[in-house]
């Protein structure tokens, strides 16, 4: 018998009860998806997305300055391509020699799907062309890095990760202006730009804070320990919305007049301080997984305590904590939607103003579904990346291959 058929029979029709269940589920699935497809292709009016695509992407960012964001996107695509290629080509992970392992095929498929996105949304041709060019750049660099990356001198390879903070600084400069670029105030950032900016800012800064807090919580010094515990539990005990509310309404009182940051930054800091507490717990569980003997062994080799922690304990702890840390990052990305409740124009806030526009009243389903797909893709991509990184850092793989 055909193996596919056999597999199907085993999975779906093993027993009479299973068969019944399968048929019922298939019927529900079929009717549900036909109803959805019918709605999506004949009743839904996607013009609301088409007409407001720039608003969703960038908010009220000045049109004449948008080239800066295209440049930034190109830089990011390049970085992603190089990073992806280097990760894959690393001799320790995949010795099969295949440049496109099975998991990458899924990622590449996702990328191809995203290629079709501007076309599906019916965006202007120049935008479509730029989009394709960017994707082409990403794939090209991925291939180049995968092909020639391993041959690069090791010193250069070690320098590569340093490019990331540099890239972030360049990005901030491109977005906000300065050094000769016309300034664009944060009140004009919006849409996906603001969402990603808030999430990346919080992710980057909560990481060192969270590690410090986790170390503090496991410290032998009682003051440090209790200080960390109080902070972590206080933040974890409060809903994010009340903390954002606190940030918007009370920060002005807590700082001398005029010193309180812009409210976009205020929200970014609240998100950072919030995420740090959760990250600390993830790191703490990682630290707990590193045996005490590791510190002692490192100390007996003559390393100082900070050295032992930074070169022996932390790397192991972070590897163990990686999945839950990425989980926190994903929920952080999702939590940025709460900014719409305090009046910021991130994706959901933009969606609200778009739907208040008389021309698009009642187009809730179209808008919310688009946002859902967008968020799903971002979060799923983060998850995929995390799993790839996990495999790459897996000591078992190192032992096997090296």
């Amino acid at each position, binding site marked *: 018998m055909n193996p596919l058929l056999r597999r199907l029979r085993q999975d779906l029709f093993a027993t009479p009860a299973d068969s019944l*269940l399968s048929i019922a589920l298939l019927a529900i699935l079929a009717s549900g998806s036909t109803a959805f497809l019918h709605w999506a292709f004949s009743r839904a009016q996607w013009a609301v997305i088409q007409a407001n695509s720039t608003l969703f992407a960038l908010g009220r960012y000045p049109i004449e300055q948008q080239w800066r964001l295209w440049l930034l996107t190109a830089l990011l695509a390049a970085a992603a391509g190089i990073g992806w290629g280097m990760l894959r080509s690393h001799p320790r992970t995949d010795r099969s020699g295949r440049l496109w392992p099975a998991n990458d095929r899924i990622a590449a498929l996702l990328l191809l799907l995203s290629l079709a996105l501007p076309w599906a949304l019916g965006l202007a041709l120049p935008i479509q062309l730029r989009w394709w060019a960017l994707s082409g750049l990403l794939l090209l660099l991925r291939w180049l890095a995968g092909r020639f990356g391993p041959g690069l001198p090791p010193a250069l390879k070690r320098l590569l990760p340093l490019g990331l903070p540099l890239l972030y600084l360049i990005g901030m400069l491109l977005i906000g202006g300065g050094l000769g670029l016309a300034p664009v105030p944060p009140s004009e950032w919006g849409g996906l730009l603001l969402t990603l900016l808030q999430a990346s800012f919080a992710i980057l800064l909560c990481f060192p804070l969270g590690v410090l807090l986790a170390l503090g919580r496991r410290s032998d010094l009682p*003051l440090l320990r209790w200080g960390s515990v109080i902070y972590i539990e206080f933040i974890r005990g*409060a809903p994010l919305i009340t903390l954002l*509310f606190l940030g918007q309404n009370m920060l002005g*009182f*807590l700082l001398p007049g005029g010193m309180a940051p812009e409210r976009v930054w205020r929200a970014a800091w609240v998100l950072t301080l919030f995420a740090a507490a959760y990250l600390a717990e993830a790191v703490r569980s990682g630290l707990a997984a590193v045996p005490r003997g590791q510190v002692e062994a490192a100390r007996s080799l003559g390393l100082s305590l900070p050295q032992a922690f930074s070169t022996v304990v932390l790397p192991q702890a972070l590897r163990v904590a990686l999945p839950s840390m990425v989980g926190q990052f994903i929920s952080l990305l999702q939590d940025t*939607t*709460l900014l719409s409740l305090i009046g910021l124009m991130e994706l959901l806030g933009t969606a609200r103003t778009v739907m208040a526009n008389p021309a698009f009243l009642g187009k*809730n389903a179209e808008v919310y579904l688009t946002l859902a797909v967008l968020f799903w893709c971002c979060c799923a991509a983060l998850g995929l990346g995390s799993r790839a990184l996990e495999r790459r850092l897996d000591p078992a793989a190192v032992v096997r291959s090296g």
Partner: protein
Amino acid sequence: MPWWRNRVVLPWVIQAAVALTVLVLIAFLLGNLIRNLTAAGLLLSWNWLGQPAGFDIAETLLPFDASQPYWRGLAAGLVNTLRVVLAGLVGSTLLGTLLGMASFSSNGLLRGLTRAYVEIVRNIPLLLQLVFWYFVVFLSLPNGTAAIQLPGVVLAKSGLYLAWFGEGLRWLGPYLVNGVWQAPLRLSVEFGALLTGLVAYSAAFIAEVVRGGIAAVAKGQWEAASSLGLSWFQTLRQVVLPQALRVIVPGLNTQYISLAKNSALAVAVGYTDLYSVAETTLNQTGRAVEVVLLLLAAYLVLDLFISLVMNGLNRLVQIRER
């Protein structure tokens, strides 16, 4: 030996430095707070809690009207929060456990669908799901005779009508009077949307907790049970789940607490919970600091309570295991 190498002195120096920094920071913030509040004439006071609130709340278990004081309004909001949290805990536990169990089904389609559900729901922000449920699903419900009628339940835009015990403990279903539905139990669509959103979201996470718990039970247990002639469901219910609970309960604690905190998003779908009342109160009174303190304290106590109950449950599960 210099002091910075002294392992007795050094920790205390570090701690003193950290404590000093934190104290200076706190003193700085508090000083500003008091100065700014004084300048604005808003120095902390709690007298306003006894003033009449002047606003109404749509659906309350705790009777409340505009002539009653603010504290009563906040209490009514808290009761509304507790109501949705409690219903959410029950609902998400049931759905989550079912989903978690289904991911071990022998039916591949069911397994796949469960997986898909968890992956879809967990990767979409809760707030987005809530507004979707409210503005897209619940506000599109028809009214009157066109309402969706299920046995014992009627879903209409004007509310969700459930069968319950009417007068004289008589089981009574929803009925139509002059085009308006009546029932012993009526829930608002705001409550319905919030509850649905919270349950659907939390259930995905609880399903993962349950799945992890079941997976932690040794495979041999399944084989042993089935060789004793137990069916799949019997094995799960009588052999595997009791052991899995040991792993599941601590995980549930985390999920329950985040459900309680997530309930504050009610404000986005027009349900008047504690946070919503607090926001209105702040607006009417201008008492930002007091309101924020009350909010934080209330949620902290709620979390604490859930943790206490779950820790008790955890002990129970652990003892039963032997």
